């Protein structure tokens, strides 16, 4: 299981990386915005994407739409982990095809639950 973590703050990437490692996912890579993430996704054979929303350059929402619009990537499971808490935004993310949505601040238990739920549904 290869996972890409996208967040503009290295601290948050590190936290998510640690939590994922505790859940048994040790094969993770990091990117700091959508522009860096997209080429990695296209060449890297990732199984899962965890992304923030608000990032300079390409936002997580644009990344989500770009992934869904890409013939090769469109089935990639995406979990959004973000401080964006407007109802409109959550609805927009759902309509754009996000698989899970976690609002910051979050707990390890919530992250675990959402990731497991996504994999349950895929299998």
């Amino acid at each position: 299981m290869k996972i890409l973590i996208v967040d503009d703050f290295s601290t948050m990437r590190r936290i998510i990386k640690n939590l994922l490692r505790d859940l048994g996912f040790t094969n993770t890579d990091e990117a700091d915005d959508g522009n860096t993430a997209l080429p990695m996704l296209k060449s890297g054979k990732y199984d899962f994407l965890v992304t923030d929303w608000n990032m300079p350059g390409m936002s997580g929402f644009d990344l989500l739409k770009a992934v869904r619009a890409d013939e090769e990537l469109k089935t990639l499971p995406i979990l959004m982990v973000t401080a964006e808490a407007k109802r409109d935004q959550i609805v927009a993310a759902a309509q754009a095809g996000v698989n899970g949505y976690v609002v910051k601040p979050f707990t390890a238990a919530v992250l675990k639950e959402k990731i497991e739920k996504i994999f349950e549904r895929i299998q």
Partner: protein
Amino acid sequence: MSDSNNKNPQGLDPEVTEKLRAQANALVEHVNAGDYAQAMTLINDLSEVRDQSLYREVGRLTRSLHEAIRNFQIDPRNAEQQEALSKMTDASDRLEYVVKMTGQAANRTMDLVEETMPKAHVIRDEAAALRDEWLRLRRREMQPAEFRDLYGRIDQFFVTLTSDADTIYNNLSEILLAQDFQDLTGQVIQKVTNLVKEVEEHLLSLVVMASHVDQLTGTVHEIESADVSAEQGVGPQMNADKREDVVSGQDDVDDLLSSLGF
């Protein structure tokens, strides 16, 4: 705007309104009498009164503007202050310091956590293994050679347990110390907040002054409403529990998503 009390709601000086009233009557009289030349002179006088009042207002605006700039401590005529950093530049430096301090603290904490967690793991695994052996001993299933092995292993475990517990204790107390940024960044943020409040007050009085000039001159501005796109992200929401358009936590998100069929 100490003299705003002397004004009527349209922002005109009493002197101006007085003159306007007097000359308006004179104007009607002149027009009725067919004395158009006098009437035109009066109209010119009236517009002069209006202009003078406007100049006075602009003059006051300029003075207040100077006052506001002096309060920002970026008066370019003062060499001393010219050399010193302006409060505004200082504020962004201070906020950069906050970002740096919080980043350092977070990384220091995570370094220590990442160093400590594997130690806890090793202790747990070794304790579990020793417990299994110990139970075998108690059930008298152990050969004397195995017991000698266990004897040494327990001894070794006590030694590493002591030093690992010390390391864990020290790491935890360093994590505690790494939180000292809160005190420093808290003070800095409070100072910047005060500055922002000050600036806000000055800007507000500038806006009030400008609107008075607009009223006097009859200027109407077409203001285009700036639409902030939520698609690019707006960041954390304050007072989320008091707002309808914002979720107040993960439970709200889950409810919303399940209502959409997730």
